[in-house]
């Protein structure tokens, strides 16, 4: 009997909520997490909205000035090596462990691995290098490197939770945490690990978000209610966000043996490159189409079996178009018509966080029996003709869900998640 990876715990620090109940409510009621945001104290900038993370504050690079909600415990010993997104991650992991019925000590011992994804902390790295430059190399924060470079998440979480299984970070931009989850599935399926902690996170700072304005990738719409509108004819770019999402992935046999509640099965995953551009997606979504095809093949399900697609669509003109064409090619051309929405309309684009966050949303859709609607969608782009983009969330219980992610350089990664009942599809 092949090993089956399943999800038994989720933790959320997101623009639409810092706990499961708030996130479910936001997804069901299509409440967005955006606020007006002045980047670098410059009101003249065209970018005016962000997916803020409420209850946290990182006003300076010094951890002494940082604040987080009282219900989360972040020790002094730990926080000195963390980036802002590391603080989010600790708070998300605490939730995921509690939901899975695990203690932090259960992560030690070698049976549990840790796969993470973040872009590091441009905020802290910039400050660290400024400090070294100002002293001509004679001074620097000893924690400067481990708190700021890509990998800071896995350095800190692995040490803090004493994880002696597989530990790795993934860097494929906006597909990063989808890679982390996909390879975590493989660790379980290959029998290398019994349990995987998967964490995606990003800082919610000017330094992490505003550089995308140089690519003209950010929305210039000042209205938080419509700035992020994936697949809409008038979409003009994405709205940035940060946060952290943690998933506890376990071998189904282990989960059952310890009486854990299985929220969703991880049925298959796949990936494909565009082989096209360093920054832009393939104009016809060729890589994403192939990634979806491979994922369905891995899951051994037909396009018609997919009930809901959580699209990558970030609200950029080119990217959403590519994905719409890929979805047409894989589903519409095969007579399939799944419900489709991009929850980035509510959260904003979480970059390295996005894939894990949206896999967790897919888990919620399966476990809580609903389909998130396509928020903020006025008039759909004509390229979406034939795609089923429900304007409101639906009380439908999806059995099989597809999660899409795409990153710079044309990395496309998808997962199929399923309702925990083996009989609904062949394994």
């Amino acid at each position, binding site marked *: 009997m092949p090993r089956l990876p399943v999800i038994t715990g989720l933790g959320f620090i997101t623009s639409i909520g810092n706990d499961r109940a708030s996130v479910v409510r936001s997804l069901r009621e299509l409440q967005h997490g955006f606020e007006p945001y002045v980047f670098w104290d410059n009101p003249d900038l065209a970018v005016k909205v962000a997916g803020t993370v409420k209850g946290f504050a990182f006003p300076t690079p*010094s951890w*002494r000035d940082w604040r987080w909600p009282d219900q989360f415990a972040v*020790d*002094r*010993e730990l926080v*000195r*090596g963390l980036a802002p997104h590391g603080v989010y991650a600790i708070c998300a992991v605490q939730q995921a462990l509690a939901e899975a019925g695990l203690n932090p000590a259960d992560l030690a011992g070698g049976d549990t691995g840790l796969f993470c994804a973040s872009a590091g902390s441009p905020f802290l790295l910039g400050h660290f290098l400024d400090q070294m430059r100002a002293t001509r190399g004679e*001074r*620097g*924060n*000893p*924690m400067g490197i481990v708190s700021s470079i890509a990998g800071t998440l896995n350095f800190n979480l692995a040490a803090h939770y004493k994880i002696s299984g597989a530990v790795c970070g993934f860097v494929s931009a906006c597909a990063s945490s989808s890679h982390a989850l996909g390879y975590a599935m493989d660790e379980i399926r290959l029998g290398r690990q019994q349990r995987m902690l998967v964490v995606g996170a990003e800082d919610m700072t000017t330094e992490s978000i505003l550089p995308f304005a140089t690519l003209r990738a950010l929305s210039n719409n000042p209205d938080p209610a419509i700035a992020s509108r994936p697949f809409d004819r008038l979409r003009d770019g994405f709205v940035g966000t940060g946060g952290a999402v943690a998933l506890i992935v376990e071998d189904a046999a282990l989960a059952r043996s310890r009486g854990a509640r299985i929220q969703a099965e991880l049925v298959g995953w796949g990936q494909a490159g565009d082989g096209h551009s360093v920054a832009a997606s393939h104009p016809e979504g060729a890589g994403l189409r192939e990634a979806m095809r491979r994922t369905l093949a891995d899951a051994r399900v037909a396009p018609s079996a997919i009930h809901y697609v959580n699209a990558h669509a970030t609200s950029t003109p080119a990217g959403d178009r590519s994905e719409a064409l890929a979805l047409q090619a894989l589903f519409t051309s095969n007579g399939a018509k799944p419900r489709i929405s991009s929850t980035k309309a509510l959260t904003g684009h979480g970059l390295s966080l996005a894939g894990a966050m949206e896999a967790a949303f897919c888990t919620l859709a399966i476990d809580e029996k609903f389909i998130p609607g396509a928020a903020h969608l006025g008039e759909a782009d004509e390229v979406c003709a034939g795609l089923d983009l429900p304007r409101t969330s639906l009380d439908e219980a999806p059995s099989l869900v597809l999660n899409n992610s795409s990153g710079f350089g044309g990395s496309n990664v998808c997962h199929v998640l399923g309702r925990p009942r083996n009989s609904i599809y062949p394994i």
Partner: protein
Amino acid sequence: MQSAPTSSAKTNVPDSKAAAIRHLPADVQTAFHQFEADGNVAALDRVILAILKDYIPRPSEKPLDALPGETRLMDDLGFDSLAITEVVFFTEDLLGISIANEEIIQVRSLDDLRGFVRRKVAARKAG
């Protein structure tokens, strides 16, 4: 809220150093100003213990000034090499002294640290 020391005590302290210790308790800031004004080593000791407390990885059960002088930084207080490096850099900048790696590894206890910083500061003043 911590209140800032009186302006008369600030005479010998540049703004950059006042800013560097603004997160420390008001009585420690006052002690630092006193040390800078008259070289009072008891005041210096209070500043050193406050810096240690600021960087200690795990809070100490007893106040540091209530612990015996032979209390070891690593074995008893839980300091690791990174936290000690943080203390060293902060202390170097605040007191205008230079501490070599070979020197700091000789400092094992609270008394070692107090004595070491006193000697360094005295050498600074002599120089």
